């Protein structure tokens, strides 16, 4: 299986990984490392490969630029940031990080069954709402799309899952009804 990215920076709370142009994982994607570390994609960025190099403006469309100056793209790297939140091992999920993520770790897509396992653990939502919204302003949108993707894939009664998940989220957000309502409204069943 082809990897989605490779970890190039490790901080305690966020990983920075390099991916491929036009193949960056969407926000809210859950990835795993070959050693089972799980992480959630929370932002994207593009940067120079050569330190200190300043890109300049060309005034052309992307397509034109790709044709005429392909080196411009070759000098850039495509990156995403992901927050690690747990580990996956032998069909079970641990919402606790007990492994250090090595630099150059490769990150892969997760499978539906793995994501289902994660969603079974309601504590996963504690993690989601512990993400600092002032640092990652897209947090709530990410959560909405994450839940939507999960419910869309479900075959059984979606209402029950909705109620199960939001009953738990209501407890977390009991003092922030506005956010709760925003998320509930964003999720469709």
């Amino acid at each position, binding site marked *: 299986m082809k990897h989605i990215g490779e970890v190039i920076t490790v901080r305690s709370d966020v990983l920075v990984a390099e991916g491929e142009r036009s193949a960056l994982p969407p926000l809210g994607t859950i990835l795993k490392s070959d050693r089972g570390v799980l992480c959630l994609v929370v932002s994207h960025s593009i940067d120079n490969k050569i330190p200190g190099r300043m890109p300049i403006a060309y005034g052309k469309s992307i397509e034109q630029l790709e044709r005429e100056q392909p080196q411009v793209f070759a000098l850039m790297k495509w990156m995403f940031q992901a927050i690690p939140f747990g580990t996956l091992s032998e069909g079970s999920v641990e919402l606790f990080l007990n492994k250090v993520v090595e630099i150059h770790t490769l990150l892969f897509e997760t499978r539906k069954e793995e994501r289902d396992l994660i969603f079974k653990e309601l504590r996963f939502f504690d993690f989601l709402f512990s993400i600092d919204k002032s640092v990652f302003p897209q947090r709530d949108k990410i959560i909405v799309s994450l839940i939507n993707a999960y419910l869309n894939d479900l075959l059984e009664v979606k209402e029950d899952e909705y*109620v199960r998940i939001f*009953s738990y989220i209501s*407890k977390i957000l009991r003092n922030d009804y506005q956010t709760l309502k925003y998320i509930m409204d964003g999720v469709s069943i």
Partner: protein
Amino acid sequence: MNGSIGFLKSGSIGDGFLIRLNKTVNSESLQIGDFIVVQGDLYDYFGIIEDIRIGSSNEDVFFNPPENKVQRIAVKGAITFSEVLVTPYLMIEKSTNRVVTIKTIPEHFSDARKANERDIRIVFGGNAEKAFHVGSPLTMDERIYIDLEKLAKRNNAIFGITGSGKTFLGRIIFSGLIKHDVASLLIFDMHNEYGQFAKSEKKGKLKSLKGLFGTKVKVFDVSDKNSNADDFIKIPYGDIAAADIAMLSFLLSYSQHSEETAWIINKRFGDKWLKHVEELRSATEAEIEEKAKEWGVNSSSLSALIRHLDKLLSLDFIQNIKEDSSVQKILRYLKNGTSVVVQFSGKYANNPLAYFTVANIITRRIHELYASASEEERNKRIMIVVEEAHKLLSSDIKDKNIFGTIAREMRKYNVTLFVIDQRPSEIDSEVLSQVGTRFVMQLMDEKDMDAVFQGVGGGSRLKKILRTLQPQEVLLFGYAVMAPVPMRVREYNESFFKEVSESVSAPSAEDADELY
């Protein structure tokens, strides 16, 4: 957890237990008056739902309320919630099933559930030897029993508006008392409902006490029109005292002057006084004036007295005879354990004057005779049943008649009152306080509701339950029951008849089969 409706959130013995409902429990599935058990470690706490409420922990929710059912369910429990307030009454010790009054409370988060059959059986199961099935919890089919022995030891009352089911409940209880030989009843049957037949608004004619118990019940009537009567009531003039008449003043439009005049004549002639007055009914003005002078009374007051007594003297069961043989017969029956129903047929149906005169005089005579009997002879408990008792037990006249005395002295002579009434607020409060067990059915008037709970701990809470009662439902509390019981009175129907008319000692069909 099995049948859990929620958990104990807060509370005290005095203010009740506040139960936070589980989010999956619909508040509409619970009702005021339902029995709830909160499970502690050592005891199960048995109580009654006194109030149901909904609330929220975050008012923001009302600015942008959940849009649909799933959203509403999702936020329930965390942001919105339902709670029930349960008044605890009893504790069932888990290790022994012993039931005691509430003395402590369980810990936070103790599980709450609706009472189940087992709880009801332990609390109202009638372990007593003479337990009698009278009804069921409002929302369950389990049986509620009362201890008839305990009931009969004190005065009792059934209160409720017309049509609430007082007479039917009364008849059920009386059936129990007769079947189990707990007391001899003397029933003053104002509307002729406790003798051979009963009337039902829905079912027409039904069996009543005599129809059910045959010779264990005798029917007396003031009118010989009643073909079901075993005997007839005659009241001799000599049995009526001036005091009796004073008590009937509300029916005779009797004045203070007449009352005084009656006293003077009564004093002068003793038990012959009424006879003397009666003789003047056809007298001329001049003759009356002459008698007035002779007796030392005002002549116009005497004329007024004669006029006022006319209605009474026209009751043809009041006669110029010596012996009150019917009273003697009634007493003999009661002493024997036979119950007596006094009816008012023919022209005396729905005649308050006939009713109250007979009830008052017979009761007084019976009480006199019983009180003067030896203690041995008094071993049968007598329970006197009166309807519309407020007329006899109001504050202004309760001291002037026998019912007030019986109410106060119930235990002295083994004679108790069973009062059936629509207007408890008009009964003297001291008399009310002597009522051991109260069966309160639907009431509408605030004054009446307040009256029935006077002097009752937690009365204001019980009032909430009372307000929810439907016809044929009753809130029962007091001496004979361990906890107040809101209940649906059992059906008075064929299966009831079958149950009570089965002889207590006769072997059942199954036993008989096994014998042969």
